[in-house]
């Protein structure tokens, strides 16, 4: 069952992404967005889903895996690998979130970028995510690296609620929440909402697919490294004999 699910992950992801594109570009009507700018609203099917994955799904995976690594009962290199691989995916999705947001901002707001609380805190998260990856590179000892990364990964998660509530706590140029609203009421019209929800599922599956691929690569690397070390040791032993 697990194998079938894994095998289907790629094709289902691609199919849903294609479905999102068709729905978003051809099936759904334009948004009334400020009279005449209706087609900019189609970025709604990309930007929020990317942000959803970056901030909650992917970053959340790193945070949970980091917590599980620090907890003695569940400590394993598997957790460390999941946390680091998810952070790599997070970095990619944060970059895409910022890029698509900027593309939306230029025609809608009139500027590519605004130093408001939402945009700045998201950019800071991007820098912190890069910092996580840099910290891992800086440490040569696997156990030490895993422990420090886990602590750092949990600490920087403080930024997630700040990003989420920034549009509520402070006055920002960025609009308030469209989907994850405080009242639970979604302010998107029916047919647009359906496409939006499909995009959320599609990008979440894309995350799972990317994470799985990255994780498998990491396992292969570790195996190759261990094999290399074992053969080098065996050679030295033969030389010494």
């Amino acid at each position, binding site marked *: 069952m697990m194998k079938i699910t894994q095998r289907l992950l790629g094709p289902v992801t691609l199919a849903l992404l294609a479905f999102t594109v068709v729905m978003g570009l051809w*099936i759904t009507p334009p948004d009334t967005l400020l*009279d005449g700018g209706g087609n900019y609203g189609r970025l709604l099917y990309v930007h929020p889903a990317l942000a959803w994955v970056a901030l909650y799904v992917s970053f959340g995976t790193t945070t949970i895996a980091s917590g599980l690594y620090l907890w003695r009962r569940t400590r394993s290199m598997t957790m460390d690998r999941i946390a680091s691989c998810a952070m790599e995916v997070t970095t990619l999705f944060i970059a895409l979130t910022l890029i698509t947001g900027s593309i939306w901002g230029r025609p809608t707001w*009139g*500027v590519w970028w605004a*130093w408001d609380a939402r945009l700045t805190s998201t950019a800071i998260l991007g820098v912190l995510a890069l910092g996580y990856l840099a*910290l891992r590179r800086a440490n040569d000892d696997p156990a030490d690296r895993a422990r420090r990364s886990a602590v750092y990964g949990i600490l920087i998660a403080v930024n997630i609620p700040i990003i989420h509530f920034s549009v509520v706590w402070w*006055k920002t140029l960025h609009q308030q929440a469209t989907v994850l609203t405080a009242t639970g009421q979604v302010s998107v019209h029916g047919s647009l909402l359906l496409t939006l929800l499909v995009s959320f599922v599609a990008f979440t599956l894309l995350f799972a697919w990317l994470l799985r691929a990255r994780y498998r690569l990491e396992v292969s690397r570790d195996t190759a490294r261990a094999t290399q070390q074992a053969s080098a040791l065996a050679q030295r032993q033969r030389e010494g004999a």
Partner: protein
Amino acid sequence: MVEAKDGVDLTPVVPPAVAQRSRRRSIGVLVVLALAVVALLSQGLLKNLNYFETVDQALAQKSSLGTKELRLEGVVKPGTIDRTNTGASFVITGSGTNHVMVNAVGSPPQLFQPNIPVVVVGHFASKTSLLFECTQIMVKHSANYIAAHPNRVKAPNGSVR
């Protein structure tokens, strides 16, 4: 050199300073990170977490604001937009009768129009004036997305059903 009876070198081997090197590198990364975060925050959030002042807030503290540069948010009053050779002039409103006249230089954003919230960057002409000299207009978009024609859905072939 410490030698055993059979001539084998037994001098303790100094282990490579892996931990120390890692710690140094980690501290370096953390310092660079802290600098990057402060640099991002210094672009505005360290001074004020709010991106703009509303018309009501600006008028309430007008005397202290003087001609200082600020970002001001209000709704474009219908019938007041006058496009000029250098830009546009219009009125933005707050609650009640609060309003500010804006004299903007440069072309407004594509979606600029009456009845929408905008954020204008600039300063008041004087301490007592209600005229706001603006160098940039930004359109503030709402969180609502409503289909232009809810009952009509476009088919993939372009026809409207």
